[in-house]
């Protein structure tokens, strides 16, 4: 497959010790891969291994040379007390304001620590989503979002995939994952591809 960005064969990832069941998958341009499953099965660990943060204990993980990654984690960016505006945050990652939902676009010049938790989460997520990248890795992106935020995120992800960007998405929200992903892997023992 010429548009494969990442290929995993019998991949077992972890931090101090192996934390996932062996996994096989291919991440391709323009497609969204969802990783779901119960708490503790290693969804975030797999995502971290793709980002080069967690260890690969066995199996093979091949990435295309020069692959540009963008990574969103569950950690909240430490912007409390820092006079950083939303527009400046987007500029940091090279993201654009175009396409932001109206409820956020109007507050783009406000300080991040003066936005609501949901607004701040969506803006920090947007800064990663819109960064120039071949592959976007998202860890629980629907956390802290209301229904309007989730709906806007779903259409933004589909639009991003339509432009050729690959996405890997970790979420406990099965309905969201099923709705927007082209392929879903339910992590567990053994791994099942749906």
């Amino acid at each position: 497959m010429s548009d494969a960005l990442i290929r995993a064969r019998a991949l077992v990832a972890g931090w101090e010790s192996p934390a996932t069941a062996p996994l096989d998958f291919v991440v391709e341009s323009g497609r969204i891969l969802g990783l779901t499953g119960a708490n503790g099965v290693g969804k975030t660990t797999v995502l971290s291994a793709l980002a080069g943060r967690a260890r690969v204990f066995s199996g093979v993980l091949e990435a295309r040379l020069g692959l540009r990654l963008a990574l969103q984690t569950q950690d909240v960016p430490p912007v409390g007390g820092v006079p950083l505006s939303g527009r400046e945050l987007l500029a940091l990652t090279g993201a654009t304001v175009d396409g932001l939902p109206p409820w956020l676009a109007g507050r783009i010049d406000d300080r991040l620590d003066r936005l609501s938790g949901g607004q701040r989460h969506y803006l920090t997520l947007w800064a990663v989503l819109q960064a120039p990248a071949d592959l976007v890795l998202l860890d629980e992106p629907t956390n802290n979002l209301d229904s309007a935020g989730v709906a806007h995120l779903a259409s933004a992800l589909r639009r991003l995939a339509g432009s050729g960007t690959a996405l890997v998405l970790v979420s406990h929200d099965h309905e969201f994952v099923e709705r927007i992903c082209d392929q879903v892997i339910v992590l567990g023992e053994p791994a099942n591809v749906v």
Partner: protein
Amino acid sequence: MWSDLFVLPFLTGLCLALVLPVLGCFLRLRDEWLAALAYAHVAAAGALLALIGGAMPALGGMAAAALAGGGKRLFAGRLAGGAAFALLLLGGWAVAVLLAANQPLAEQLGHSLFDGQLYFSGVAQLALVAPWSLFAAVALVFLSRHLLLARVYPDYFAARHLRAWPVVLGFDLVAALTLALATMTMGVMGGFALVFVPAWIAFRRARSWRNGLLLAAVIGIAGYGAAFLLALGLDQPFGPVLALLLIAVGLIIA
């Protein structure tokens, strides 16, 4: 006022009054405001050591601060959470006090370094401070995006395979050398006041990062100018007048 006796010290301090508040914003961003006191004390100890060793105190102070700024990376694993700066502060203070207690020459310079000696700045000091301040300002502008990115999105930074250590090492060296020069120009607490207070006000009041840097620089320059004139008019030491003025401004507008 407009004789060389006052113009040279004024211009020397003015350069620092522009760059120290901006540096303070980046130190505050990185939760490293204690670095200002740490590098200042290490620079003071280095200057005294150089004096006793027969070398130029200014070079000794800058070398010690640069060594501390670059060298603390070697112990990063053990010195997380600001411990490096606390230990540098204690070590610098201890060495400086011991040297001053045992060497009459060092005692005299030690008092100057801790009290501030801005009014004794001459052409040589201005020739050192002015180009360095310009370089530090340009370096901070150059490092700004990566410093912000590393703070706000550390995982993104790593995922893009951007190397953090050249940015951090570069910043540490700029901070250490700027604070060493500030200590030897306006004293430990005069420099600390310009690093801490304008950045503190800016972080509370500014609408954006760019606005914050500008606000900090304006407060630094205005506070410095007013303190210089006030200290001169009242025949008082500059450092304490600057500190009290900035504290008053901070309590009113922060």
